[in-house]
């Protein structure tokens, strides 16, 4: 696995986001690169570019000149030759789609993810957070006050909610996380057996939905995808499956990371915890500040045509990493960019991406993050990190704590 990786000589010329050193120290790496080499390069993964300035990241995401393609958004070492879903469609529409197809594929999903629809899921989410803490706190009581906020709490929340939305069995949560591990955390580990793949699992689930159509207005998201049309035709089976794969995986590691990082912050900053807990009006700003400073998601593009950027010659097929978290810490774009300011008033962060691929699940993710933190700070009165050295952050394109042992003081 990752510990066999060659050491990184210089992050400006040998960048590797899957290296263990990156998990521990990414923010310092971005700050250093932004100052001395705002478009870093690496020969790894077949050639990759890494911008760290907010304005470059926005311009690349905006992609006004069609210089980049979203056909692949997770850096990998395999040749991509999926003939069923050629450009501009890609394997998981709309995230792998380019214009003009992208807008049509995306529009199919906008309504179910719009704020007023998502708000209906809030009571369900809140109840589930309470249920998780009932179990986690009981465990902590028997365990010297110790439980893991990433493993026993944060990771379950997005899984349960998206299973509800898609109409998948909630008890399959562990399987979803294994699929994600294969796809995002370790895309270059090994080839999988067919039965291990997310496609194999989802084909059976989609078939079950197809065989049991629900009345108009009562369906889940899979029913929705089976009923809508694009260009006057039902979606192809590959399109339905690709989009379900996307909806299942896009929201899990990401939101898990965001909730975990926020709890990690609160455990170390009692003054912020006090304000979050006691001042409901500050929460709307606090949530965005958590998202800015601890943005979990780095996306990727491929260079679609040779062009020049910041004096460098980019070649078609090169990877272009889009580290939104690095842009969110650019001092040119944010005052005191490296500080957590709980009521920051000017906060145009790009945690959910920028431009046409803006996170479709952003309203859902925000709701989950807010509810998860409200319930946590209400129920867990006095907590701290068990030991900063036992917190483990992920490597790769999704950044957040995967282990976050806390110590709770019950008699406070």
């Amino acid at each position, binding site marked *: 696995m990752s510990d066999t990786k060659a050491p990184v000589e210089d992050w400006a010329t040998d960048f590797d986001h899957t290296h263990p050193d990156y998990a521990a120290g990414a923010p310092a790496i971005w700050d250093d690169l932004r100052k001395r080499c705002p478009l870093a390069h690496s020969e790894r993964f077949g050639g990759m570019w890494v911008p760290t300035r907010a304005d470059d990241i926005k311009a690349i995401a905006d992609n006004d000149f069609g210089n980049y393609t979203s056909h692949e958004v997770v850096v990998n070492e395999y040749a991509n030759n999926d003939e069923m879903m050629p450009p501009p469609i890609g394997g998981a529409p709309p995230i792998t789609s380019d214009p003009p197809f992208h807008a049509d594929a995306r*529009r199919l999903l*906008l*309504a179910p*993810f*719009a*704020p*007023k629809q998502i708000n209906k899921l809030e009571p369900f989410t809140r109840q589930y957070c309470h249920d998780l803490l009932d179990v986690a706190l009981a465990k902590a009581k028997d365990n010297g006050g110790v439980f893991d906020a990433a493993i026993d709490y944060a990771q379950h929340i997005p899984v349960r909610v998206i299973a509800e939305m898609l109409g998948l069995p909630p008890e399959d949560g562990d399987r979803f996380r294994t699929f994600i591990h294969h796809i995002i955390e370790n895309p270059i580990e090994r080839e999988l057996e067919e039965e291990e793949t997310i496609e194999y699992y989802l084909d059976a689930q989609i078939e079950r939905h197809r065989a049991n159509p629900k009345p108009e207005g009562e369906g889940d998201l899979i029913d929705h995808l089976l009923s809508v049309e694009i260009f006057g035709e039902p979606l192809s089976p590959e399109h339905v499956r690709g989009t379900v794969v996307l909806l299942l995986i896009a929201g899990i590691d990401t939101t898990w990371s965001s909730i975990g990082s926020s709890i990690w912050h609160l455990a170390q900053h009692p003054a912020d915890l006090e304000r979050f807990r006691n001042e409901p009006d500050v929460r*709307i700003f606090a949530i*965005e500040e958590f998202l800015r400073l601890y943005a979990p998601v780095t996306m990727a593009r491929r260079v679609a045509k040779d062009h020049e950027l910041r004096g460098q010659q980019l070649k078609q097929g090169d990877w272009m990493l889009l580290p939104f978290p690095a842009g969110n810490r650019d001092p040119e774009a944010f005052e005191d960019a490296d500080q957590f300011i709980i009521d920051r*008033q*000017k*906060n*145009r*962060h*790009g945690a*959910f991406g*920028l*431009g*046409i691929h*803006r996170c479709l699940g*952003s*309203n859902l993710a925000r709701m989950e993050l807010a509810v998860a933190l409200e319930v946590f700070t209400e129920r867990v009165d006095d907590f701290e990190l068990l030991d900063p050295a036992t917190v483990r952050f992920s490597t790769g394109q999704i950044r957040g704590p995967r282990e976050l042992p806390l110590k709770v003081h019950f008699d406070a």
Partner: protein
Amino acid sequence: MKISYNRELCQGHNRCYMLAPELFDVDDEGYAVLKVEGEVPAELHDKAQLCVDNCPEYAIELTD
């Protein structure tokens, strides 16, 4: 103070709607809908500024 909003630039981040539901609504697809035409009432000036300062796509503008 006048407020304007550019639908072409809006990507539906919904920051404006969350910060100032008095000024912005949201349509069924999650795009912003400006609720006031022209002059922003004095008591909403601060909120209008917040919308401008938090729209990641620079889709909202204020003019005197």
